[in-house]
């Protein structure tokens, strides 16, 4: 299939990538760019593991055609820690609260959380649940994830880090 060059800004770095009209964003990020933190758990928009932030909003990269993303700013899980390598408070909170087991849902779960807290810095438990309702975790039973998100919100609020 005929390839077309698109520009994507991924984690503050500009990439020029040849894509076909049917290439999915998840495959372009994972295979063409070679950043593999974004996971593919179902390929049909059910599990949320492939979530990335596009211009700040969470999108399912397995349902997004790469060719429609020309010029968009994308943040993947690799783009969340700061430039010195310090973990984002959400990442730290997931670690501290035992919200990670097999780790396969973790990148999508953390990025969905980032979008949620950007929009609602002080979510109550119901808002947290609604915020991550599209992300499946089969290991943790979600309890520690919800706790980690609440604690991350507090941590961000007190330290005023974004």
């Amino acid at each position, binding site marked *: *299939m005929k390839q077309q060059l698109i520009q994507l800004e991924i984690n503050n770095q500009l990439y020029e990538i040849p894509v076909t009209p049917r290439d999915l964003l998840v495959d372009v990020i*994972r295979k063409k760019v*070679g*950043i*593999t*933190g*974004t*996971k*593919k*758990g*179902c*390929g*049909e928009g*059910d*599990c949320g*593991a492939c979530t990335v932030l596009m211009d700040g909003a969470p999108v399912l990269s397995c349902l997004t055609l790469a060719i429609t993303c020309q010029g968009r700013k994308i943040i*993947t*899980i*690799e783009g*969340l*820690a700061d430039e010195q390598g310090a*973990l984002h408070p959400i*990442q*730290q909170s*997931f*670690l*501290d*609260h*035992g919200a*990670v*087991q*097999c*780790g*396969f*849902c*973790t*990148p999508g779960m*953390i990025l969905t959380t980032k979008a949620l807290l950007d929009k609602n810095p002080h979510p109550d438990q119901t808002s947290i*649940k*609604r915020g*991550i*309702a*599209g*992300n*499946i*975790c*089969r*290991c*943790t*039973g*979600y*309890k*520690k*994830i*919800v706790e980690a998100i609440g604690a991350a919100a507090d941590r961000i609020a007190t330290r005023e880090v974004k």
Partner: protein
Amino acid sequence: MEGKKFSQVGRSVTRIDGPAKVKGEAIYTDDMVMARMAHGKIKRSTYAHAFIKNIDYSKALALPGVLAVITGEDAPNKWGIVPQTANEVTLAVDKVRFHGEGVAAVAAIDEETAEEALDLIEVEYEPLPVLLDPFESMKRAGEILIHENEPDNVLHQGEQLFGDPDQAFAGCKYVLEKKFYTSYVNHAFLEPHSSLAHYDPQNGQLQLWSSNQVPHYLHRQLSIVMDMPMNKIRVILPAVGGGFGGKGEASSSDFCAALLSRKTGRPVRVTYDRNEVFVTNKGRHPCHMKMKIGLDQNGYIQAVDFDNTLDGGAYAGWGMVVMFYTTSMIHLPYKVPNARARVRRVYTNKPTCGAMRGLGGVQPRYAMECLLDELAEMMGVSAYELKMKNAVESGYRSVSNLHVPHTEYKKCLQTVVENSGYLEKHGKQPFGKGIGLAGGYYISGTAYTLYLSYKPHTTVLIRVDTEGGVTVHCAAADIGQGCNTVMAQMAAEVLGVNYEDVHVVSGDTELGTFDLGSFASRVTYASGVAIKEAARQINDKLFEVAAGMLSCRAEQLEVRDRRFYSVFEPKKNIEWEKVVDVYTNTVGTLTGIGHFSPPRLKGIDLTRGERVQGANIGHSPTFGFSAQAIEVDVDVETGKVRVTKVTEAGDCGQAVNPMSVEGQVEGSIMFTLGQALYEEMHLDKDGRMMNACLHHYKVPTVMELPEMDTTIVDSYDPTAPFGVKESGEGPVQPTIPAIANAVYDAIGVRFTELPITPEKVLKALKEKQGK
């Protein structure tokens, strides 16, 4: 007691693989890239039962970019996790036995080309009658066989008799018998199967990276299928995205990747789509059960009679083990003096069932805990009283010879009843609100290798030197449950260092020392024994050197916080590194090696064919326990059951990493809540799966998360290394019956078939009103 003096064990520490996982840097099999890597895809059957008349792949092979095509004839050797019943092939030979079975595989330069090639493969089938119900399958065995050498469409059947249940029932005051059915469910781990094989034609070596939880058994199966000695094969686990039993045997993806790599001389990767994960299944066996329990006038259990027909699907897999586990699991956690079990595992034209978290326990537990709830009502006592009365105690030996060296099961029941307010709530809430109680247990450590062998089940090698510090080698599999962290904590405990100082080399059959893998809740216990032994050897040698350096006797020394101390003169102490430095400089690298073999009960010698009846889970060195009180709201308009609160208390012995234990318990409860209320794979009349996706299969989301209150009860098993027991399969057991008992308490209907869907609830409510 030793358990109270720990410094590394018993601490909630963050996982050693955690930082890489939150940064997206953990490498899973599908994340790997190798030079010249090709992509494999599997062509799947469109019939559930049919002869393969012909496969023509000439057009596929002619497609530019296609490197190789294989069919069943390329690897006819049969494999199976249980060698006595091995009957699976990599790709179907002559006949397909379930819809979605692999019939051919393609390697191509990219995935798109491989997919295109699949469409060009022409398969000619001669359809056969499709048997989807185990009773129909047995009935029609004279007319149609799924396997030629299995005359009744039955893999195996068994009967176990202990005492005289018939006589015991005759003397019982309360007897209850009911049928129960558990549904057809899948593990739904989040990472689909993925395998990357690299065969080097020059040295004849095969390396396989795989998303798997039993690298050793995968290693053995590869050797059989590939016709290669094990010492030419290396299996490596990258990060694994969950298993829950579903990666507890080899997968077709492993063999297809390996065969295609050998054929093309390139690395080949095969990663499944979600749909393929469902249609190749290996999930929990649907069980058609009949259970009868008899109590004397005082409420003591006198007899249990259990009949179970397991719907096994197309191949053997773990089937025989699961079948016998269901019989063995009726002997605990209550004292059962007389018991009979009659069980059979039947072939059907469905994707095969296999091992799934809490294997063989979940189904009979559902029946038993629901029956006891009903019997308590018949007697006019609380289920709590009845269960406490019959609960096992430390030192109990069942009629089937299961020995429980230590248990806090009664404390578990007591804790949940107190913490949940069960006695105040049960039977006293408005219609639609209910609370249910159930208990459960699971083995801690497997009893046998699946092939006949008495070799140790785990070996741990600890290496200490100035370069690497402490390195623990063990081919155990961290599939997300956190065993690498737990192994580091246990090694650090004995060596007197911090867990962060310990490097763990696991999941590698070449760099890791022998381990059977992650199943049967065995790794913490088994590796704990081996780690203790290996670390003691290290300490013995370092104590001698430290003693010389401190001018005291070695037996006066202890090691903690990275220092050696004289226990009599604490002023005499020296840093751990300095002692290691002296040892390394004079002798060289220091190693210690430890092994674990499960204890053998008297009178059992497999080589002489002597086995204690029902001991299939026997020799489990200890058992973990859990009790749960679950509260529900039943919406009588919609029929929807909502779990509002789960109160749990578990006996996992000494928790090595309490935060990790909580994660196992909470995860177990949500995992099983899904089976109780939502999850079920549906097949149409032709055997095609109708809901092979996470959305329609209905995995619980966070919206289903109830309030959860879990307690790790104070426990220490003096017979276990560091006092440990299992924590990841015991808490799976009580969830389903606790929910079913709660629904009964809410609306007065006993559901004996899973899942308890709104349709079933509405129907039952309507029938109830009609009466």
